[in-house]
């Protein structure tokens, strides 16, 4: 004889139009005498009805113009990313300019150009990869398990990067205040570089890490999120 659990699975199948003809009579027979399964069916039907009503209401009230604006904005996200990179490259160039004596500025800017190009390409690569994170690996294996692994990797990466950026900020500040240089001003140059790196550290610490930890908790990685 089937258990209540099996009949409750059958209730779900009937609710979603997947119950076979042969299973209907035994289910009705069981339901006629089992209060527990009757309550289960009532809750399942009630919950589905409420969820459908909520979805209908949300669809009717949705601000589709905002969604469409967002889609158009999303399509232009690469332009925004390019602008951010140009701003960052200009910031580094500004630091080189301000920290270097006037006669050496042109030559030093030319010398730092290749490293700035490398930096921009690197940031573009990271941005492109992160932009594709929603579609990347989306059709491989059990979806939530794959997502769980990605979130865990992201959490570990953010934790390491947090300490790495803090160490870089400390090093740049040390160089800014204790460093010696004859052809440029170390306080302006290293201090100027420390500002965006400190911004990255703040973003990781206050925005990225708490967000990834929340996502990890939601996916059942409670211990990993707490560590």
């Amino acid at each position: 004889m089937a258990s209540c659990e099996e009949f409750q699975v059958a209730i779900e199948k009937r609710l979603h139009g997947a119950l076979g003809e042969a299973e209907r009579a035994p289910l009705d027979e069981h339901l006629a005498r089992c209060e527990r399964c009757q309550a289960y069916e009532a809750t399942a039907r009630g919950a589905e009805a409420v969820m459908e009503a909520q979805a209908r209401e949300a669809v009717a009230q949705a601000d589709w113009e905002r969604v469409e604006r967002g889609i158009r904005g999303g399509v232009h996200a690469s332009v925004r990313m390019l602008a951010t990179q140009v701003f960052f490259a200009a910031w580094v160039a500004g630091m080189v300019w301000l920290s270097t004596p006037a006669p050496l500025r042109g030559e030093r800017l030319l010398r730092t150009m290749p490293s700035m190009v490398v930096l921009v390409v690197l940031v573009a690569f990271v941005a492109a990869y992160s932009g594709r994170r929603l579609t990347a690996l989306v059709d491989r294996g059990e979806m939530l398990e794959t997502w769980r692994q990605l979130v865990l990797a992201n959490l570990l990466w953010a934790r390491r990067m947090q300490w790495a950026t803090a160490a870089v900020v400390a090093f740049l500040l040390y160089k800014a205040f204790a460093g010696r240089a004859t052809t440029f001003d170390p306080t302006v140059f290293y201090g100027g570089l420390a500002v965006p790196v400190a911004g990255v550290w703040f973003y990781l610490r206050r925005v990225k890490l708490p967000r990834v930890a929340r996502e990890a908790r939601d996916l059942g990685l409670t211990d990993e999120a707490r560590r």
Partner: protein
Amino acid sequence: MSARPPLLSSAEEAEILAGVKAGGAARRAASERLCRALGEPLLALCLHLTGRRADAEDATQEALVAVDRGLPSFRGEARLGTWAYRIALRAALHVRARRRDGEPLDPEPRGLAAAMARLPAEPRAVLSLFAVEGLSHAEIAAILGVPEGTVWPRLHAARRLLVESLGKK
């Protein structure tokens, strides 16, 4: 409730993919057609997963942008709709994580919405997918990437968790 027809038939999906391959105006038309067909069901799914209309709109937006960008590289290993739902599921979980702990749901947490919000991602995803009109259990299994036969026990387990969560205030 009865068996539900798919949102996009195989023929419609093939037309959309042909439009994407053709490029130019056909690509734009295909993309708009896909967004029109999927917008409402994706919003419904995202609403159940995030518990807040504004978050659901953001997640739908992100999912549709990702779908639009990913269309040229779509390999056709799954149905187009299945692929889009998978992207939306991830987008909704991602957007939900942006909400700070303790931020209220919209409307104020009450009844079923609050009980759903207390569930972990997996049972919430199963219940949400079953609440979306137009998805069969086979499609839900394909979206979750699990064997078809395991979908019903998963739904049953999720429903029991929901009942427990409804009992908590």
